[in-house]
């Protein structure tokens, strides 16, 4: 699992599944501005996913385009991290997930921008600016909720506790990849630590670290997500409008 195809596919799947989950908030967010914000972030993730999956398809050379990769693979063939496929939960869970994801994607895309692969470098240079907005947005809400009322603090802490174990998988060593994610852990900790502290939240202890997403071994949540995302394309193959 160390070909450029696997790497582009994994990053593309992270963005695609994150986009699908964030899109579930559309028309359901706590306020209008947040609805627009989450839809915008979903759109950014989808944009990155399209570029990465298109490139993955070209690297594979088997004639699969972005649609074939997004719509015609089963859960065991997806390579996204488990964090992005977890259900949205309440708003605090969504913000905890977004904070961890963006605090990983920002240094990842920044490092990609300087890598030798020209296509990945272009995608990284483009996507990192968008990731910076996502990370700021998530951090703002984590601070506001964590250092808010007793109830918002309780729920934000619960959300961080629940999703923290899934952050470890993001930094699993990947020798030979254009950017080894293991080298990004320092950036992540340097950003997330102070945000949690400022939000009066306790950084969970490191222990249980579920993984398997990069090998196609997912939680039970992914196949339900894919069923919804893929049903139209599978029912009407090749349909356009």
């Amino acid at each position, binding site marked *: 699992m160390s070909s450029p195809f696997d790497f582009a596919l994994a990053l593309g799947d992270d963005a695609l599944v994150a986009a699908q989950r964030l899109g579930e908030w559309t028309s359901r967010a706590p306020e209008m501005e947040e609805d627009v914000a989450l839809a*915008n972030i979903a759109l950014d993730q989808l944009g*990155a996913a*399209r570029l990465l999956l298109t490139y993955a398809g070209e690297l594979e050379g088997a004639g699969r385009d972005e649609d074939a990769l997004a719509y015609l693979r089963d859960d065991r063939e997806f390579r996204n991290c488990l964090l992005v496929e977890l259900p949205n939960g309440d708003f605090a869970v969504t913000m905890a997930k977004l904070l961890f994801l963006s605090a990983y994607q*920002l240094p990842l895309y920044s490092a990609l921008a300087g890598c030798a692969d020209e296509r990945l*470098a272009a995608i990284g240079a*483009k*996507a*990192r600016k968008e990731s910076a*907005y996502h990370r700021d947005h998530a951090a703002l809400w984590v601070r506001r909720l964590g250092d808010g009322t007793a109830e918002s603090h309780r729920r934000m802490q619960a959300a961080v506790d629940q999703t923290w174990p899934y952050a470890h998988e993001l930094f699993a060593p990947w020798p030979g990849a254009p950017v080894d994610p293991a080298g990004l852990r320092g950036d992540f900790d340097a950003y997330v630590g102070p945000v949690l502290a400022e939000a009066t939240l306790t950084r969970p202890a490191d222990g249980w670290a579920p993984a398997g997403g990069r090998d196609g071994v997912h939680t039970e949540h992914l196949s339900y997500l894919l069923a919804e995302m893929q049903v139209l394309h599978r029912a009407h193959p090749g349909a356009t409008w």
Partner: protein
Amino acid sequence: MVDPREAVAAVVDPEIRVITIDELGILRAVDRDAATGRVTVTITPTYTGCPAMDVIRADIRRALAAAGHPDADVRTVYSPAWSTDWISTAGRAKLAAAGIAPPLATRDAGTAPATRAGTVVPLTLAVRCPLCGSAETEQVSRFGSTACKALWRCRACREPFDHLKAL
């Protein structure tokens, strides 16, 4: 037959219809093969997920066909990445006239709000209300009606307005 560059440069952005794609800085090149007459247009998206790209491609083809260039190819490139620095001075003036506060100086990693480039202490610059000119404004939401805009409000005239956020 109209010059293809001229025809393409006049295509307006479908989401912000007061500004052309040339002024917005997403038109990178227009090349015409002298031998075949085939026109190749190179564009770049503002945001990776910009949903207007398909419409922009179609509008470019339509404009070229009307200008006598039915044989056209529209390519999309991602490098160098677009930033708000690509918006022309004329484009900024048109945005402001349409009630959209133009972007401030860009920053490296894209962390809003914008700060004055080159200063040691990050200094937040005011976004002026495009309607009354007041600097007494506040951000309502970092994300607005399109991927490239944020929602702001003027504390002086109380009007909400869009701000094309620096990227």
